[in-house]
């Protein structure tokens, strides 16, 4: 075990998998010599050389397209998009090519591309260095969306992504890139995709989040505990495919749920969670499920802490479910 932050954990996973599997290739803007703007690919270029760690020009469509082409040949490309906000020049390649290759070739051409990208607010980055576009991708059949919240999860989930055969958007919560530190196995330990993590058990209300919002719901759970309210805290880890059974089991126990994400509310991922829980566990619900989310605005420059969900807003929602 070693203490790592999320960047180091991602870096460790990439080192392990590149050493184990020669088909893994990393590519992106400044990922090589420079080691990535957040240093997540640091050291890879020196160890594996320019044929496996490829610096690209500014060309997101070209980066993802090249990754798709390599994947069709059985390689395992891991493109980095510097910020999730810059992924949109590649949206066509992702939505129309990457996500549908297996399907439209009748299963002949799987496309195991793992796109890594930092996402989310809280660093005063303004409109274009803060967005959380996960639901835009979760909506696209054929893609998987994975978002870790801890260093150990980042490493274990990324290793799993690199060892399966379908495209993944692996979104890294940049606000806690360095702030989240924890014990991580230095060796080769994977964490399965599609399994949520029950971080804390409780019987009064289920709190569900992913990525940087996990620490927010944990803080809310702590505050609630001081008032004798015991919350169950669930880290979703994988948005597509998501672990509906774990959520249902929890809601059957608590009868209440609060869903939290920092992306805007309308058509945010929370809507899918609420709908899925209602479809399967309506009769167990003691109160309407609450959502605590970003607002329906572009990501603000100054008012970002008013925009981002915080523990007090979550706690207010918990109370609302209890007092309903």
């Amino acid at each position: 075990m070693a203490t790592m932050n999320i960047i180091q954990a991602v870096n460790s996973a990439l080192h392990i998998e590149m050493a184990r599997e020669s088909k893994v290739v990393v590519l992106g803007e400044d990922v090589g010599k420079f080691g990535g703007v957040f240093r997540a690919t640091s050291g890879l270029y020196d160890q594996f050389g320019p044929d496996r760690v490829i610096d690209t020009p500014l060309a997101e469509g070209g980066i993802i397209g090249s990754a798709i082409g390599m994947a069709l040949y059985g390689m395992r490309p891991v493109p980095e998009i510097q910020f999730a906000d810059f992924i949109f020049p590649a949206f066509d390649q992702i939505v129309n090519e990457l996500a549908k290759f297996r399907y439209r070739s009748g299963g002949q051409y799987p496309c195991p591309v793992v796109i890594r990208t930092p996402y989310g607010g809280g660093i005063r980055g303004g409109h274009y260095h803060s967005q959380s576009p996960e639901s835009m991708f979760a909506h696209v059949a054929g893609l998987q969306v994975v978002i870790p919240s801890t260093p150990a999860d980042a490493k274990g989930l990324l290793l799993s992504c690199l060892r399966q055969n379908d495209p993944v958007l692996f979104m890294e919560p940049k606000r806690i890139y360095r702030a989240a530190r924890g014990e991580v196995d230095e060796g080769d330990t994977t964490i399965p995709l599609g399994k949520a993590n029950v971080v804390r058990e409780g019987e009064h209300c289920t709190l569900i989040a992913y990525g940087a919002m996990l620490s927010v719901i944990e803080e809310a759970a702590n505050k609630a505990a001081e008032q004798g309210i015991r919350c169950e805290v669930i880290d979703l880890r994988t948005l597509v495919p998501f672990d509906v059974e774990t959520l249902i089991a929890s809601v059957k126990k608590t009868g209440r749920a609060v869903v939290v994400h920092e992306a805007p509310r309308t058509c945010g991922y929370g809507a899918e969670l609420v709908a899925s829980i209602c479809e399967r566990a309506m009769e167990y619900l003691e109160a309407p499920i609450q959502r605590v989310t970003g607002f329906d605005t572009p990501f603000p420059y100054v008012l970002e802490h008013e925009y981002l969900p915080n523990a007090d807003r979550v706690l207010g929602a918990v109370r609302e479910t209890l007092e309903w």
Partner: protein
Amino acid sequence: MSGAVSRERGLELLREMMLIRRFEERCAELYSAGFIRGFLHLYVGEEAIATGAMRALSPEDNVISTYREHGHAIARGVPPGEVMAEMYGKVEGSSGGRGGSMHIFDASRRFYGGHAIVAGGLPVAVGMALADALQNENRVTACFFGDGAVAEGAFHESMNLAALWNLPVLFLCENNFYAMGTHLSRAQAETNLARKAASYRVPADKVDGMDVLAVEAAVRREVQAVRDGGGPRFLECETYRYRAHSMYDPDRYRSKQEIEGWRRRDPIATLKGALRADHILYEEDVSALEASVEDEVEGAVRVAEEGSLEPVEDLLKNVYTPREIRWRR
């Protein structure tokens, strides 16, 4: 350069470049002190381009830029206090504090921003020029972007559209040879950027972007050609940023000698030298300019410091046309 410029004009250009440089250096200090936060991209070293180019444009023309746009905004006439206040996120800022460093907008000066997405401004410039062409406006759209943007698909679509439709747009490429940590030679197979534009039948030329008089002359020539109905033009201005890409960038990808080499071609020092050689710049001028620039920048900082922050009630403002808004948790 000798005899190329009158004393009055020379001092004006010199002051403008000194103002932009001092402004940027002050921004760096304020960033380190925590007053400006987030992402900050400085223009130090590249001042000759904005300064020279804006002189060649009329107030009726359009300007559209990148995230490294403080210099463009100031040279276009946006008051430095409004630019600084924008960086502080204050309501007094040029975008009401909504945009920050990368999103200076000023409709009254036809300054269309501030674009944080690389190459995002190019297709927009084409659209503005198309609107002018369709409405028979005799206006030029000047579009600034970096060498890195040339690798994006948006650049190539924009070149073709502008040429195909013969649009009044001047593409001003600020080639500082780096896109973040990647040198041009590692990012583009054809490093002669003007040739790329030319391949789309956009007449293209190059100018020394460290020489303000050369930039001004070249932009005047190109603007005239565009205004005369000759369709789009592309001008590559070779330059260098002395500072890191942004305040986050450790700047470990280039040598001290390389930076020093470019500093020896410093646009401010070069103009000073030329004016001195013509005996139209005196030491008192330089100290007077320094003092007046210092005053103006400190005035800008005061505007920013004394400004106010947007109240939380305004969080939903300007997402759509004003209408009744509902607050939800």
